[in-house]
């Protein structure tokens, strides 16, 4: 999905919807910035079982050409994918400073 990141500035009350509602999908609001550990996948050992993709609580793993690809704009480094991977081919690596 194309990410439209145009900033939207409200000026007053009347312009707001009645409830807090993003004007675009979460694709426009990257939330991966506070990650300490990032998953690194060893695709040589990957059996393409999709378990990591299914378990990611933030839908931050994309499935591209039958391979899992971590979307680092949204991955928060929780490590659930590494924990669930039956081949243990996902390693949680410390983010560089």
């Amino acid at each position: 999905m194309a990410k439209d990141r145009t900033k939207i500035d409200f000026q007053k009350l009347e312009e707001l919807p009645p409830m807090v509602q993003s004007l675009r999908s979460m694709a426009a609001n990257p939330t991966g910035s506070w990650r300490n550990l990032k998953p690194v996948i060893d695709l040589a050992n990957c059996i393409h079982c999709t378990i990591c993709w299914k378990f990611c609580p933030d839908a931050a793993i994309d499935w591209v050409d039958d391979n899992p690809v971590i979307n680092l704009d949204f991955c928060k480094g929780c490590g659930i994918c590494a924990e669930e991977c039956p081949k243990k081919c996902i390693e949680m690596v410390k983010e560089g400073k």
Partner: protein
Amino acid sequence: MKKVMMGNHAISHGATLSRVQVIAAYPITPQTQVVELLSEIVADQKLKAEFIKVESEHSAMAACIGASSAGARAFTATSAQGLALMHELLHWAAGARLPIVMADINRAMAPPWTIWTDQNDSLSQRDTGWMQFYCQSNQEVLDSVIMAYKVAEKVLMPVMIVLDAFSLSHTYEIVDLPDQALVDTYLPPFDYKYKLNVNDPHTYGGLTTPDWYMEFRVKMQEAMEQALGIIKKEAVEFEKTFGRRYDPVEPYMVDDADIVLVTSGTAASTARFAVDQMRKKGKKVGNLRMRLLRPFPFADVREHLKNARKVVIVDRNISYGYHGIWAQEVKSALYGHSKVPVFNFIAGLGGRDIFPETYIDIVNQVKKMKKPDQELYWVEVKR
């Protein structure tokens, strides 16, 4: 079609006639029959709805929030501890502006464990952003469910229909079941402008900074103020369609009354009976029944209490360390508008009966006083 039914079944029929699409509820005495009958109606395919069995009241409200966000007409019912468990999500439903309707059967809070009526459960949820309609008959309960969806969906705020445990929930009365076709003309299908849509995804309820949080609260307050006007308009509209009328307050012989008893729920019907008895003996007593807690009908309260020489609020609830809760509300409405002395009596907690004689005793006690010499008076307490 007229039928004899218990208050709880009047709620179920009200929800069925409103064509609710999702029902999520957890059973609790004295609410159980509400969802029992609804589950049968859904199982018999007399109502096209999803009946979601949940593991708690917190989950029941969460399911209603999800359903309503997706644009479905959602319904639940609960009591006492169940309502208290929902508390967090009551704020969420109102803040997300979801027109969910729920019935709360007033049951006193534990401990000590109890199943009988008083109003502390619903009144404790006063500030969550839910409208609250207090009912006094099974007919009013059924009609209020239908009317609640109409009002809620216009202003996008949820409604709680409130009725007394046992003295209404399990009491059988004659109820006129309106024709489905007539209800359909009064209550069109729910068309939610902000519903979840996979083709146009949005995030709801996300982090909001101090820059904008307050503006959403202004919008909720404005919606509630708007709701009061809509409730008054709908009272007329409902009467035109169904021949029955429900105003924010119900005055009874208040115009020339020296003493006005302010009451709510089934205790209000008893008060009117007591007023009749006292009127026969030449005592100028009236009754003002409060139907609306939120939005609060300030103008109606001031108008109907303007001629009273003494106002007596009989509360079936208490805010420990303060007054009864209706007393706080009514006093606040009168402040700066009237100098009438206001007396507060606490009666009938935990389902203790409030009899006509209870009101007659209260009036006799008030007659002896020029103004209250205590913040509140306990009624029929064993000392």
